[in-house]
C-alpha cells in the first residue's frame, strides 16, 4: 500500500496552524525580521535554520510571546496573537539552556505547567507519569536537575514542555549542549515523540545536519528574511540561491555566463577563458550571456585516473589535497586555470587498494543535470 506523503503545504485546502503576515521586528535601528510572511501547518516539524543573528530566535520568541512584532500579524490557529501574553498562548517552549527549575524535582518540574491550570490531582499525576514514560525518565522522577546528566536534563525539558499538550512546541537549539553521538540519538527520539504526540514542532537550529534530519520542511534564513523554504531534499538538491547552496552542505560554486547550448537542451556555460564550456540543464531561463552560478555538490563529481568515456562535463586537474573522513574522501583538485574543485567518493575499497594520491593528474566528470544553475 502506498503511503501518502505528508505535504500539507501543497494542499490549497489545508489551513495553516501558524501564519506570519508581513511581520517586521526591529530592535532600535536593527531590523531582526524583515517583512516576513510564512505559513506553518499542523503536525509539521518545521526547522528555522541560519547563522547566528539571522532572526530565527526572534521568530521563535515572537511565537512564544516574549517579543511582539513591530509590524504585521502572527496568527495561531486563526487567532491573532497580538497582545496575548506567553501564559495565555497554546504554545510551549523548550529552552536552549533547558531552564529547569533547580529547586524542584524532575517530577515537579514536569508538573509545573499542569498545576497552573488547576488540574485534578490524580489526573495530574497520571499525566506526569505518562510524560516520564514517554521520555524514559521514570527512574529519575525524584532527583533534582543538578543530579542528572545533560541528556536526561534535555529530556526533562522536553517532557515539561509537552506536558500541557500544546498545539505548538517551540524548540530553541534543543540539542546544542549534547555531544555528537547523543545528539544523533536524540534527533531520532525527537522525531519519534513528535510523531507519537502529533504536536507541531518548530525548531531553531544553526546545525544544518540536525535540521535536515528532523524537519519536514526547512526554512533557511539570512538577515531577517527567509531565503528558501522546502523539504530537506529540495533544499539540498535544488537550492534557489548561492546563499542556500553554500549554507547547506559542501558545494563548488562556479561563476560563468550562460548561452543556449548548441544541441538545444540546457545551457553552455563559459566559466574561464580558454577552458571548455560546461553543459548544464535547468528549468530557469537565462538570456544569452547572462551571468550565472553553477552549484555543484562534490559527491556528484566523479574522479578517475583515466578519461571517462561518456560525460557531459569533464576536465583534467591535479590532486592537491585529500581529506580522508573514513567513510568518504574529499579530493581537492586544481584545474588548469588554477580554480580549486572538490570531488567526493565513497571509500568502498580498503585504503591500500586505492590508486589516487597527491600530485596525481586526474579527470573530473559530472552529468549535465548534476549542477544547479543559479542566478545569484
Amino acid at each position: 500500500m502506498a503511503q501518502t506523503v505528508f505535504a500539507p503545504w501543497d494542499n490549497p485546502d489545508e489551513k495553516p496552524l501558524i501564519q506570519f503576515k508581513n511581520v517586521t521586528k526591529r530592535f532600535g535601528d536593527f531590523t531582526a525580521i524583515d517583512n516576513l510572511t510564512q505559513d506553518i501547518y499542523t503536525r509539521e516539524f518545521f526547522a528555522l535554520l541560519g547563522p547566528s543573528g539571522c532572526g530565527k530566535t526572534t521568530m521563535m520568541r515572537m511565537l512564544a510571546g516574549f517579543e511582539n512584532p513591530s509590524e504585521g500579524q502572527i496568527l495561531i490557529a486563526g487567532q491573532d496573537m497580538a497582545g496575548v501574553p506567553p501564559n495565555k498562548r497554546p504554545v510551549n517552549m523548550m529552552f536552549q539552556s533547558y531552564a529547569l527549575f533547580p529547586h524542584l524535582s524532575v517530577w515537579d518540574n514536569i508538573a509545573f505547567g499542569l498545576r497552573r491550570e488547576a488540574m485534578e490531582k490524580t489526573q495530574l499525576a497520571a499525566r506526569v507519569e505518562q510524560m516520564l514514560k514517554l521520555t524514559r525518565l521514570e527512574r529519575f522522577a525524584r532527583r533534582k536537575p543538578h543530579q542528572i546528566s545533560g541528556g536526561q536534563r534535555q529530556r526533562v525539558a522536553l517532557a515539561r514542555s509537552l506536558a500541557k499538550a500544546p498545539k505548538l512546541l517551540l524548540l530553541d537549539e534543543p540539542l546544542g549542549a549534547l555531544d555528537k553521538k547523543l545528539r544523533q540519538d536524540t534527533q531520532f527520539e525527537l522525531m519519534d515523540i513528535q510523531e507519537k504526540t502529533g504536536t507541531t514542532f518548530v525548531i531553531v537550529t544553526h546545525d544544518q545536519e540536525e535540521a535536515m534530519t528532523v524537519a519536514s520542511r526547512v526554512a533557511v534564513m539570512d538577515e531577517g528574511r527567509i531565503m528558501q523554504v522546502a523539504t530537506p531534499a529540495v533544499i539540498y538538491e535544488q537550492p534557489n540561491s548561492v546563499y542556500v547552496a553554500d549554507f547547506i552542505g559542501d558545494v563548488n560554486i562556479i561563476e560563468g555566463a550562460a548561452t543556449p547550448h548548441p544541441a538545444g537542451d540546457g545551457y553552455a556555460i563559459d566559466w574561464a577563458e580558454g577552458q571548455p564550456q560546461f553543459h548544464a540543464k535547468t528549468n530557469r531561463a537565462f538570456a544569452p550571456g547572462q551571468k550565472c552560478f553553477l552549484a555543484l555538490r562534490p559527491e556528484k563529481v566523479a574522479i578517475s585516473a583515466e578519461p571517462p568515456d561518456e560525460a557531459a562535463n569533464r576536465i583534467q586537474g591535479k590532486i592537491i589535497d585529500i581529506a580522508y573522513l573514513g567513510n568518504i574522501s574529499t579530493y581537492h583538485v586544481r584545474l588548469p586555470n588554477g580554480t580549486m574543485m572538490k570531488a567526493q567518493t565513497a571509500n568502498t575499497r580498503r585504503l591500500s587498494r586505492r590508486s589516487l594520491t597527491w600530485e596525481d593528474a586526474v579527470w573530473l566528470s559530472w552529468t549535465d543535470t548534476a549542477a544547479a544553475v543559479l542566478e545569484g
Partner: protein
Amino acid sequence: MRRALLIAVPYLWLLALFLVPFLIVLKISLSDTALAIPPYLPTLDFSEGWAGIWGFLQQLDFENFTFLTQDELYWRAYLSSVQIALISTLLTLLVGYPIAYGMASAPEHWRATLMMLVILPFWTSFLIRVYSWMGILSNEGLLNQLLQGLGLIDQPLTILNTNTAVYIGIVYTYLPFMILPIYAALEKMDDALLEAAEDLGCSRLTAFWLVTVPLSRQGIIAGCFLVFIPALGEFVIPSLLGGSGTLMIGKVLWEEFFNNRDWPVASAVAVILLLILIIPIILFQRNEQKQREREG
C-alpha cells in the same frame, strides 16, 4: 602538612578571638562582685598550685544566672529585644528585597554603581548617621517640618524616642547587610527560568513567587541572620533613638557593666544572649544539613 596549616588558620582565629574571650566571660559570670580591681572574685592564682585551682573552682557558682530569672526586668528585656529584632528584620527584608531585585534586574553596566551606592553610607561614621536621624525625626526635625510645610499634618508627629525610631534606625543601618546577599542570589539567576515559568502558564506575579523567591532563599536567610543577630544585641540605636520605654538587652548590659559595675551579672546577661543566638542557628543548620542529605 600545608593543608593542615591552612585548615588550622580559621580554627586558631576562632579559638583566639571567640572561644578564649567567651571562656573568660563565662568565668566572670560564675564569679561574685567585689570592690576590687578587677571587680569580681575569685581570681585565678597559679602560685598556690593545684590547691589554689581547686579552691578557685569551688568558689564559682550559678548565683548570677538564678538572679536573672528572679528579676523580671531581664526576661522582659530579652523578650522585647527578640521582638524588636524580629520586627526590624522583617521590615529590612521588605525594604531590602525590592532594592536587591531592582539592582539585579538593572542593566549590567549600572550594577557596579548601584552596588557602590548601597555601601556608600559606610564611608561615614555610624554614630554620625544615627545622630543625623535624631535631627530628622525630632519634633522640630526635618521630617515634621516637611510634613507641616506640605500641610499634611497640624501637630508634629512624635517619632524620636519611640520604638518606631528604633525600627527606622535599625532598618536604615542594616539595610546593606540584607541587600547584598539577596542581590548575590538574584544576580546568579537565569532569566530564562522566569520566561519558562510564564511559558508554562504563570503570570508575572506567580512566576516571581514560585521561582524567584525560592531561588533567592539562601540570600534571604543569610540577610536575615546578618540583620537579626546584631539587631538583637543593638545598643547605640535604642539608646540614641529609643525612649525610656524601649527595653533592649544591649542597654541592660551596658547599665550593668558601666553604671552598676556588676561585671558578673553583665557577663551572665551576655552568656544568655549568646545562647539565644546560637541555639536557633545550630538547629537551623542541622535542619538544612538533613535536607541536603535527604536529597543526596
